[in-house]
């Protein structure tokens, strides 16, 4: 499998140095590296504020990363000039979390779908119609949707339209930032099935960002677990969830609800909250909440290591 996207040492520090204001620096992303192969789905999980969305936006260059490189199809996106970057945009697309705010309420669905074609390929609205109808059909919407406004649709329908917009340029990589989190469970399943069907047909790759391990289990090939801006563990989904090495991954897995009451075990729930990235703890960022923390965890940050590229974790005292 060829690597479509290679992210190396990606870091982002938000900072401010303003007149009469206290200087501050927040490291939202710290030395993140991973790859996505052609036709592969890579999941990113973690609590709110762990840098998942920053990661997505850095890959897409909506936010300029502070350090590191993003290689897409052997081209370094961070080194491109504005024009080639815009051209590259047609090959990486994004599906956003909130379908209520990701569509422009003043434009009909048809216009929203025609715009990328006009900007990137100079296709006029009339000539774009067959493609608009085709993509609407592909996401399971009636072609009459093209004449309507976003407010005439439900959340699930809107998310389909957002997916249609991401697909119309025929991208190679789609980044889904919590794409199903805002939808209720039955609609979630439909949208996920739709996304998987499209993947099979078009052979595209997904970077799938979520906080829901259940979705990851069913949808992703590999997964990265993030904590406070760093990847703490990565590996193939099945292996990582059955045998988590990092205590954080284990607690995440154990916190996922089990729909069968008789199988529920007493939960070792994680205490405390994710620390402020403006003032991270010393050593391993997870040590204040970690049940396995020892002295070395307080002093020295563990490195992300593993026997193979497939399975890596950053912990001094990994789970057995």
């Amino acid at each position: 499998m060829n690597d479509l996207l290679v992210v190396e040492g990606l870091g982002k520090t938000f900072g401010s140095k303003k007149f009469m204001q206290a200087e501050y620096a927040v490291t939202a992303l710290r030395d993140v590296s991973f790859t996505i192969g052609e036709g592969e789905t890579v999941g990113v999980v973690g609590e709110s504020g762990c840098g998942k969305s920053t990661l997505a936006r850095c890959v897409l260059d909506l936010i300029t990363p502070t350090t590191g490189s993003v290689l897409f199809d052997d081209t370094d996106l961070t080194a491109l000039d504005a024009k080639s970057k815009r051209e590259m945009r047609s090959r990486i697309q994004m599906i956003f979390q909130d379908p209520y705010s990701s569509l422009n309420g003043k434009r009909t669905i048809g216009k929203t779908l025609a715009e990328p074609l006009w900007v990137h390929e100079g296709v006029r609205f009339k000539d774009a119609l067959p493609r608009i109808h085709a993509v609407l059909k592909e996401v399971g919407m009636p072609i009459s949707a093209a004449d309507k406004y976003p407010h005439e649709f439900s959340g699930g329908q809107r998310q389909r339209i957002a997916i249609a917009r991401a697909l119309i340029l025929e991208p190679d990589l789609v980044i889904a930032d919590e794409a199903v989190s805002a939808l209720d469970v039955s609609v979630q399943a439909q949208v996920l099935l739709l996304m998987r069907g499209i993947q099979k047909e078009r052979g595209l790759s997904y970077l799938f960002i979520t906080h829901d391990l259940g979705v990851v289990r069913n949808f992703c090939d590999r997964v990265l677990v993030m904590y406070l801006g760093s990847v703490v563990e990565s590996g193939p989904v099945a292996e990582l969830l059955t045998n988590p090495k990092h205590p954080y991954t284990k607690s995440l897995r154990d916190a996922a609800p089990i729909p069968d009451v008789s199988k529920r075990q007493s939960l070792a729930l994680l205490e405390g909250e994710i620390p402020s990235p403006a003032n991270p703890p010393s050593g391993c960022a997870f040590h204040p909440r970690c049940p396995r923390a020892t002295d070395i965890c307080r002093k020295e940050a563990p490195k992300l290591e593993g026997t193979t590229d497939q399975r890596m974790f950053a912990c001094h005292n990994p789970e057995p």
Partner: protein
Amino acid sequence: MTTVDTTPPASETRSTAASLLRLARKNKLSTFGLVMFVLILLAAVFAPLIAPHDPLAQNIVDRLQDRSAEYPLGTDKFGRDTFSRILYGLRVSLLIGLTSTALAMVLGCALGIIAGYRGGWIDTVIMRCMDMLLAFPTLITGLFIVAVLGANFINIVLAITVTILPKFARVARAPTIALKEREFVEAARALGYSDTRIMSIHIAPNIMGEVVVLASLWAAYAIRIEAYLSFIGLGVAPPTPTLGTMIRDGFNNILDAPYVSIYPGFAVLLVVLSLNLVGDGLRDAIDPKLRD
């Protein structure tokens, strides 16, 4: 796939005229305002056909008369027919008021959207300039420009434009900052649209509701500023009638012939009122959520 089945049946495309008619039935007060404004506009445009007298013709014998069959709204101190002068005065006042509002709206919104979308030093420079303009009372800014450049049509339009421009910039900037964080703007950037495209196609239409309401209010205000400037003698040069000059002309005889000032004042009131009512209706009409 229940979500697909719940799609409402495709509504037949209605003509613009039909949807306007439906809107008019729903919002009677605004319709009234619109009708009033259109009538005023028509009266101004067709002033030469409607006016019973030459607005400049003096007839000293009939000076300072109250309403009569010959002079529907009386005469001023030179014996000129007030009704005819109001009709011709409306032309000048409306032209100045609407031109300057349109200019201020376009320029102010452009500046406000750029400031809000770009942020940083561009925002600081634009908005501090707007603050500087706002620091002076509106009338003083207008007065200053007209006094320095001289009182003619173009300078008065310029003066009023500069006076109300910062208000548009501020009103455009605030929602731009809010919209910039919305996902559809991020989506537009992710799709590789240029900043100019995002600002003009994705942000501008979304703030038009607020701006149009404001424009109708400030058009009314622009007409009032024109009246102020004329009132203190910095308007369009006499004998061209404007509503402001007419109010001032009557002021000397306010005790014995108040109607000379009152009728043009009433004309200003009607214009301002109709514009405000129209503004309210426009706000509803521009929002697709309220369209059906």
